[in-house]
């Protein structure tokens, strides 16, 4: 029994790895219904008129790419299909490459032109002060876009002087930027905002959903897969939900196994004796 309680952790890693590989090779399907917080982001974008301005803040880097890049791609598919003017930016210097790649690759599928249909403002340091600067004048916050173009000359930014002129903002975050956007942007300049985040910070974001400081939330790969389903562009996140479900079942089994063996071996009684 003691041997079962001290299994080499590498056996568990191997089991999880095999479960992921097997569930990617074996063909089966599971439904991915959209949850209300994800549905609300979709509905908001769906309700925007053609030519409305959507600002996406790509606040993540390659270490969170697997969760947030599928979200960004699905959002961009939906936005370009709807004919929205997309404005991209990032608070994370390591995120510029991913944001640029996502915007250009999806825009080319819908024959969208840079400067006219979408712009990428790039990275600026500052966090809260950058947001407040954008709230006063977006052109002084970003004098030039990522490619060095004067932001006052970009047709896609026509009619956008500050954050107040943005029709909808979505922050895709792997850190604290959602809170920063809410505190220094949304509450101060009164625009509607949604958010996408990694699963790890997902539970911390639900209070903002409840207080209606954000209108919708996509948390982790599941949130991305739900949005892909809604936007009818099933891709990596949707594919990832099969191994996700299988590995979750495996983790539950491991937890149950560990607890059953712990109780059978009398570990619970000896622990209680020690605590006395």
């Amino acid at each position, binding site marked *: 029994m003691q041997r079962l309680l001290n299994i080499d952790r590498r056996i568990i890693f191997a089991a999880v790895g095999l479960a992921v590989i097997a569930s990617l090779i074996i063909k089966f399907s599971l439904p991915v219904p959209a949850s209300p917080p994800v549905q609300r982001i979709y509905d908001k974008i769906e309700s925007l008129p053609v030519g409305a301005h959507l600002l996406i803040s790509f606040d993540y880097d390659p270490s969170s790419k697997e*969760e947030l890049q599928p979200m960004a791609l699905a959002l961009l598919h939906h936005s370009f299909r709807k004919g929205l003017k997309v404005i991209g930016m990032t608070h994370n210097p*390591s995120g510029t490459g991913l944001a640029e790649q996502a915007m250009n690759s999806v825009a080319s599928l819908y024959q969208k032109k840079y400067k006219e249909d979408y712009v990428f403002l790039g990275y600026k340091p500052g966090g809260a002060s950058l947001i*407040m600067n954008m709230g006063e004048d977006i052109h002084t916050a970003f004098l030039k876009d990522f490619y060095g173009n004067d932001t006052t000359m970009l047709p896609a930014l026509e009619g956008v002087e500050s954050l107040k002129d943005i029709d909808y903002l979505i922050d895709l975050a792997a850190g604290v930027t959602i809170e920063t956007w*809410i505190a220094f942007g949304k509450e101060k300049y009164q625009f509607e905002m949604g958010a996408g985040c990694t699963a790890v910070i997902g539970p911390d974001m639900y209070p903002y959903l*409840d*207080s209606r400081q954000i209108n919708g939330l996509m948390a982790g790969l599941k949130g991305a897969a739900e949005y892909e389903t809604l936007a009818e562009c099933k891709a*990596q996140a949707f594919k*990832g939900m099969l191994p996700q479900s299988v590995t979750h079942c495996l983790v539950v089994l491991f937890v149950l196994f560990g607890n059953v063996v712990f109780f059978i071996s009398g570990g619970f009684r000896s622990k209680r004796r020690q605590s006395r």
Partner: protein
Amino acid sequence: MINMKNKSIDFWILTGTLSLFALVNLLFFLLGRLSFSWEGIGTMIAAGLTLAIYSFLYKDNPTFKVVENLYVGVALGYTVIITWFNALKPDLYDPLLVPLFTGKHAQYLLLVPMFLGIFMLLRFTRRLVWLSRLTFAFVIGLGAGVTIPNYIHTFILKQLEPSMRPVFYGGETLLPSINTLLILLGVISVLIYFFFSVEHKGPVGWLSRIGIWFLMISFGASFGYTVMGRMSLLIGRVIFLMRDWLGVIQ
């Protein structure tokens, strides 16, 4: 003796894995599975780096260490370049320094933030360290002034609203009302659990026990989300390896 034997096994595992990786890539290039272009070579390097990072799951090893340091170095180098081209060049170099040396109209007001920034770096000198205090005083003063009212409004006053909503709305279903009651119960019971001025006996004890249950459920939810997040990262890399590198799946 056992330690030496283990080291020898580890050496052969490392050498074998690297040889196998080289052989597989050579085969892929010869068979045309990977094109001999920047994209093909990039895919090969990305696959190698992914496997090197995951090799830590077996044991800490030199390959993992090399790749770990490479990641830190590349990330820092990339950040420096992006900060120069996205922030320093358009916001300081072009409007202030270039006109100063070409005789054009310069934005002299930018001298203030430029010197404040330079002062911050003077913490490394003993004689001029006092100048860095000016910058810190400015940053802390501005930061506190801007942050405190915004934080109180956003994270305290606005967060109190959900626990103060009416339980029964006209025309709403029963579920939102139950949610409102649960939020109220959660807030009160957890606050009582952390209230140590009264002994946790009787009704206070019962409420604090309910608070513990709320805390346990929230820890469980956080753990569940963390498992999902970590699995997502693994799944993403496995999809990359199987689709882009090995070509086993579509």
